[in-house]
């Protein structure tokens, strides 16, 4: 009796374990046919039991579980909104700097032209009209130049790395046209006073025109430098991209 009970117990255990064992296999095909969100769940809970279903070859489907991730590459896609805000502000300010800088070329050019007519002839030192016009235009040029410079100075610095490219020469040329923009009106005022006193400019005032021209040339070169190298349409240029792809 005891023996039959023991045999029954063993059979029950075997049956139960067979069901448990079978249940694993019964669910296996279901696992294979599961949709992606479900497999993602399995991937997160039991990485070793990933379904082996072949990935559909239709293009542009969601990556399968076996697909490599950014973490596999040691990369993260972490956003930096603060940096983006600074980049936006920088670009906006430099755009204004660029536009205002271009507009400033007009009064600078006009000041150079009017300056040529502002030089008094002998015995006509009393005629101040041409000099007044020149002073007015030059004042406008200097004001616009100051505004242009302000936008560049106030633009946020993003990188402390040394600058490369045309911007490098653009920045070097500041050392010529910025002092020139300060010195030119000082020399101009001195020259104006000399002429108003009835004699030709003397001392450093006599170099007003040369300093102004140097400043204007450096300013123009600065605009070209930041645009360098300029591509002239129609001219051949080697490119890393094959022509058919462009």
């Amino acid at each position, binding site marked *: 009796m005891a023996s039959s009970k023991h045999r029954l117990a063993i059979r029950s255990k075997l049956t139960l374990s*067979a069901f448990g064992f*079978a249940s694993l*296999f*019964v669910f*296996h*095909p279901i696992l*294979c046919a599961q949709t992606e969100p479900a497999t993602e769940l399995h991937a997160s809970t039991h990485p070793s039991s990933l379904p*082996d*279903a*072949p*990935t559909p*070859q239709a*293009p*542009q*489907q969601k*990556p*399968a579980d*076996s*697909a*490599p*991730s*950014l973490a*596999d*590459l040691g*990369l993260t*896609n*972490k*956003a*930096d*909104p603060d940096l*983006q805000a600074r*980049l*936006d502000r*920088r*670009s906006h300010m*430099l755009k204004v700097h660029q*536009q205002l800088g*271009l507009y400033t070329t007009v009064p600078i050019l006009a000041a150079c032209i009017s300056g040529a007519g502002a030089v008094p002839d002998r015995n006509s030192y009393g005629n101040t009209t041409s000099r007044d016009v020149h002073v007015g235009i030059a004042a406008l040029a200097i004001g616009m130049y100051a505004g242009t410079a302000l936008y560049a100075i106030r633009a946020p610095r*993003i*990188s402390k*790395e*040394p*600058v*490369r*490219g*045309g*911007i490098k020469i653009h920045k070097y040329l500041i050392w010529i046209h910025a002092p020139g923009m300060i010195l030119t009106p000082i020399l101009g005022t001195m020259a104006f006073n000399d002429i108003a006193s009835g004699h030709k400019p003397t001392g450093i005032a006599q170099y007003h025109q040369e300093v102004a021209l140097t400043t204007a040339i450096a300013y123009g070169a600065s605009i070209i430098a*930041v*645009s360098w*190298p*300029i*591509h002239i*349409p129609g001219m051949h*240029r080697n*490119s*890393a*991209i*094959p022509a058919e*792809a*462009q």
Partner: protein
Amino acid sequence: MKCLLTFLLLAAPIAVSAQSPPDRIWSLDQSTLTYHMSHPLHEVDGVSHAARGKGVCHLGVCEFLLAAPVKSFDSGDTNRDLHMLQVTRGAEFPLVTVRLRLPETALANPNLDCDLEVQFAGNTAHYSHVIFHQTITGDRHHITGTVPSTLTDFKIDPPSFFTVPIKNEIPVRVDMTWH
């Protein structure tokens, strides 16, 4: 007997999966990604060697992922690169990623016909049938090709220079070696 049959039936899927080929992992050895930008006054190439990539082959299908930091592209002008970073929202979306899926058998072909999923600047674009040329030397696969990307694909406002916007086409030349 019934138990045995049941066991065999239930164990069949295990046997099938046991016959599947083992996974194959692909690694990116070196890469050069070059975008080309056109403007009436400028022709610019921006180059990155910082891409990382991995491919996983499983049951005859290979999944590849290629990613490069946006800020790693160097056009030779720091000012332009920072502006590019701003325009492409490179601080918000610091990576450009490319995913593709290929049958493992296709990896031996000299030409790879790929359907690409490119994520860039917070947008995803799909490019179908992009052909890459492949040279196989030993276990090294040297792959070259061009992704015909455009600014509008990623909803990027074209930056302008002297008030003239750049061209919409920004093809990206790919030159990489996998093993």
